[in-house]
């Protein structure tokens, strides 16, 4: 029987890695949801403006991807979690 007071360092390291991976997943996932919420109104408006004037395509696309920066923040945090810790 394994003595519970003796903790195997390999198991601790594996657990820590798992928790870090979950943290990274949450960071990317929540940021993705946030970016999506932000983009829905902007995307709808961009499509509306483009329907009237197709020259708006470039500006509309740019405006739509601005909330995407939030998703990038999430990705950066996830990468830091995975590779720095």
């Amino acid at each position, binding site marked *: 029987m394994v003595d519970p007071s003796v903790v195997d360092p390999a198991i601790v390291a594996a657990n820590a890695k798992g928790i870090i991976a979950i943290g990274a997943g949450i960071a990317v996932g929540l940021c993705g949801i946030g970016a999506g919420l932000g983009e829905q109104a902007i995307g709808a408006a961009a499509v*509306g*403006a483009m329907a*009237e*004037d197709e020259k*708006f395509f470039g500006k509309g696309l740019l405006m739509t991807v601005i909330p995407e920066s939030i998703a990038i923040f999430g990705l950066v945090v996830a990468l830091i979690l995975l590779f720095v810790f």
Partner: protein
Amino acid sequence: MGKSQAVKYAYIVARVRGMKSKLIPKEMYPKFLNMDIPEITRFIGESEYKSDVDELGKKYKGTDLFEHALNQNLALTYRKLIEVSQNEANYIITEYLRYWDIWNIKTILRGKFSGASEDEILEDVVSAGQLRYRDLLEIIKIGTIEGVIAALSKTPYHPALSGYKGVLAEIENNLDKMYYAGLIKAGESSEDKFFLKFLKTEIDLKNLKILFRMKRAGMEREEIIKLLIPGGIELKETQLGRLASMPFPEFVRALEEFSYWKAIADISGELTSLINIETRFDKYGLINITRISYYYPLSILPVLDYIVCKKMEVDNLRMIVRGKETKLPEEIIKAHLVM
């Protein structure tokens, strides 16, 4: 999860802002005053009205072409708004554009009453509401007022028309009251409270115009009160009753306590011309809706702003061309323009 206010209106607002940018800029109107009718028609034929002018060019000429092209464009533009909007925005726009159903019914009834020809009536018909152009064409062919009212029996407007006893003013008034009562109901049921605010201001301006006209015509208090539309924001029923019972000079002075006074303050010394006053009130309404549409950019207000601006554009163009046709002096045409 329900959509937020911003998401609901983002599409339609961006779309109408795009449409608004294509309206004729107000700097153009003084230029139009210096042009001849063929020049103006050519300019219009190369603008947003191109397809309408081209389409109707075979059928009509000169100012008739102009008039029909403007009306068709207005109707198609408003119809487009109904088609591209959804849910609450669609409901409010549809209710608001019932104005044109009322307008068409009034035009047809007046035409029949005065014995105008079918073509003459058709010139003023704008099928921007729920009554389709084809249905209106059929209704115009009917010879009598009773026949027209019977043809409208399946529409929601019939209750207002059914009491016709030979006086058009009565049913016209019923139609107006019915329209605004329906709009207030729509405003109260919607989550967008800005619409109600705009609507009540519009009712006030309409009541003020009615009061000025009636006072000028020397009508009695009871007669005036019958015509006024209930539901204004500043001019409540008690105020309306008080204003209706005053003689003209006192009535004008009493208006000082309302915010609408600033619309006519600078011409208060020479309130002889009703046209001047009505143009001022129209302008006030236009400035008001444009201003509040910027305060609440993701609401129904920018759409209503566009509807009002488009109507003003068409009215201004018609005014310029009709004025030029009848050789009116430039100053008089300019005084009629709302910009």
